[in-house]
């Protein structure tokens, strides 16, 4: 895999675990950066315990999510709590462009790997830190889960039914958002560094990442005091034209955001009376016609299948979608045709189908990716090649438990 890619030549020392940090370094690696993942020798990093697992077996080297999050990386197993382990890592950092970490704030300082220690060995190194709430402020050390992150990230409050508790979004995307923001920050900092020779520290808080991407509420509140109430199946209390509705074999999502799209939708369902009604041609007055709009759509949807509705609507320029399951997403012809999913090997054997890189050079096939590493798979090669350690050095470090 010596193919030159956009980020070839950028060396990243990856001190991350679980999702947010690994997603950041995966993005860098998938586009060509050389990513050296430092893992604790005993069992590797925590992401190796994340479901889903191959054959539903929660064993080492069987995490499918780990396979996805750690493509394009090499694994070096080092005990950061040992003095000689720390020296090994500092040696790697001396020869690197970027260090990424997502430990709880203060952890690396305690291990003697804080920003000052990094700068001391390499004044040009860009350091990137991702954390739940940032490295300062009263919530700094708060414990969190995806659900708590969504709540304090302001995504949960507007979701759900008015007479029930707010409902959190599905998935764990706060962590992915932060990882992606961190990858962006890394590239920007490397660009600056290349231009000015001055490295710097980049910080991403998951809470801030979530709030920066949730602008329908607090900015509107600042303008007008508007508080969006939960509106169930509707996206937004003011937009009955953005809604999930049942159909013959599941659900569809109506996304007719613009007035002419609503008119086209009403024509599609053979309701020229409503299509010609001025109340339905203006987003402001439409907000008051939710029940009428849904009442017209539901009977039409009821006898039709979601993919048929999708194609019929899109043929008329109406943004409308099925609400697909995971299986339907994977089998969707548009993604198949574009080879959006790719196969990679698992570190413990077998293959897994994962989403490919998010963007591609036009006309180019999707990038092939190096499979996720086994714990310490590259300890010998990386320390030998990058740091010039002899077999005797490595044996010595192994015997001391500093590496594996």
């Amino acid at each position, binding site marked *: 895999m010596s193919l030159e890619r956009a980020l070839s030549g950028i060396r990243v020392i990856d001190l991350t675990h679980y999702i947010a940090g690994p997603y950041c370094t995966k993005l860098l690696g998938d586009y060509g950066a050389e990513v050296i993942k430092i893992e604790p020798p005993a069992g590797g990093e925590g992401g190796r315990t994340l479901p889903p697992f191959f054959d539903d077996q929660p064993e080492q080297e069987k995490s499918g999510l780990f396979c996805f999050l750690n493509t394009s990386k090499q694994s070096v197993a080092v005990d950061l709590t040992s003095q000689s382990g720390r020296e090994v890592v500092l040696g790697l950092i001396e020869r690197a462009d970027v260090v990424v970490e997502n430990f709880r704030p203060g952890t690396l300082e305690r291990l003697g790997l804080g920003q000052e220690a990094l700068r001391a060995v390499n004044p040009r190194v860009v350091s990137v830190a991702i954390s739940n709430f940032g490295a300062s402020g009263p919530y700094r050390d708060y414990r969190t889960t995806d659900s708590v992150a969504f709540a304090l990230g302001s995504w949960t409050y507007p979701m759900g039914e008015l007479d029930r508790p707010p409902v959190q979004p599905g998935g764990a995307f706060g962590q*992915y958002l932060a990882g992606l923001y961190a990858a962006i920050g890394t590239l920007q900092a490397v660009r600056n560094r290349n231009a000015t020779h001055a490295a710097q520290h980049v910080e991403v808080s998951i809470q801030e990442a979530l709030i920066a991407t949730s*602008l329908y509420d607090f900015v509107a509140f600042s*303008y007008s005091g508007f508080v969006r109430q939960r509106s169930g199946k509707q996206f937004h209390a003011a937009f009955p034209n953005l809604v*999930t509705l049942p159909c013959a074999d599941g659900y569809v999502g109506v996304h007719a*955001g613009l007035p*002419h*799209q609503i008119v086209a939708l009403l024509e599609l369902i053979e309701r020229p009376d409503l299509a010609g009604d001025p109340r339905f041609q203006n987003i402001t007055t439409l907000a008051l016609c939710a029940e009428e709009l849904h009442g017209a759509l539901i009977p039409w949807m009821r006898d039709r299948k979601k993919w048929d509705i999708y194609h019929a609507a899109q043929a008329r320029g109406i943004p409308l979608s099925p609400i697909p399951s995971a299986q339907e997403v994977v089998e969707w012809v548009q993604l198949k045709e574009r080879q959006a999913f790719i196969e990679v090997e698992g570190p413990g054997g077998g293959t897994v189908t994962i989403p490919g890189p998010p*963007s591609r050079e036009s006309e180019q096939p999707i990038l092939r990716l190096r499979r996720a590493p086994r714990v310490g798979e590259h300890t010998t090669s990386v320390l030998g090649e990058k740091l010039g350690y002899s077999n005797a050095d490595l044996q010595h470090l192994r015997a001391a438990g500093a590496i594996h």
Partner: protein
Amino acid sequence: MTQPLRVVDLTNGWAGPLATCLLADFGAEVIKVESPSHMDWWRGAAPEVTEDGGRPYEQSPMFNTVNRNKYGIALELTHPRGRELFRDLVRISDVLVANYPPRSLRKFGIEFDTLKAVNPQLVMVTLPAFGNSGPESEYLGFGTTTEAMAGITGVSGYEDGPPQMLSNAIGDPVSALNACFAALVGTFEQERRAAGVSIDLSHVEGLLPFNAAALLEYTINGRSQERLGNRHPTMAPHGCYPCQGEDEWLTLAVTSDEDWRSFCHVLGNPEWTQNGQFDTAQGRKAAEDELDQYISVWTQEQEATALMERLQEAGVAAGVVLSGAGVLSDPHLAAREFLLTIEKEETGPHFYPGFVPRFSDTPSVVRRPAPSFGKHNERIFGSLLGLSKEEMQRLSDEGIISTEPLFPALTR
């Protein structure tokens, strides 16, 4: 210091504009291109000038959020001279980001092969909803559409209810970040090869990773996930509970047996918690409904913020459910000075999201608010492209550049 990037921003809505907003925050010179006949639809649905001369299209909180730090011009791309000026801009720029459907871009000659002839070093990022190829490449989608097609809507909502669109159309901001990342990757490629590069970014494909666990559950073990509401496959209690006051809620999660003991301690170890069944995650999960009832009775008597603090002090994950108003008064965000106050002539000062990520040595700053329609025509066409005042007057007379959007074209 190298010159800051110059970016031509032919985008509208949320995804495209936020991508270039990030670049603008980083110091790039971003030139946002609107058309007199086609202003950014995020300026709002009620565009007419009001009786007292107000301009609602300058007062959209959403538009004003994602267009800060940019220059704005209004150039009629349906006119050949407008397209020529657009190419002149591309000639002297580093990056072009465009989020109109492939069909519309083709119509205006905004294609990489054409523009490459004008600027061989160009990084061009296009971000159609479903990508530039494939049988459904011309299909239309907003952020909620791409969110659905990535399988995220299907796993959101109450466990006993219909799928629920996310509160913020995750497809848009994620595509924005993906486009920003792609543009930066493109600049590295541009430098490495000393040549331009065209990047195809499908919103849906860029969103798939954000639903990776559910998708892999299918590709590995053949299962499609059910909606879980506020619940978790293994943890209990795990939910959103009512607190004192109107529409005040606390999210909490007991992630281990040790957490459970800490949690009970905060409750004052009432008798119902002494049920041995609750000592294990399995036992708690099996009695989840019962637990939620007990907990709700208790939380209703508590003030949400105070309860969050007490639980966190005991090491239990908990967070108040922040509304928009809550974001503005959150002490943590205030201590970190996250929110920005930006003043625009037509709106006065308002609060906006701060900078993510934060840079220690070259922190982002607010240099200007979102541009009023056509605000920087003179600067861009005059100072930058070198048109004379007479030429600009002529363009303005012919409606090729403008500082007033044409109505009512955009509501159609």
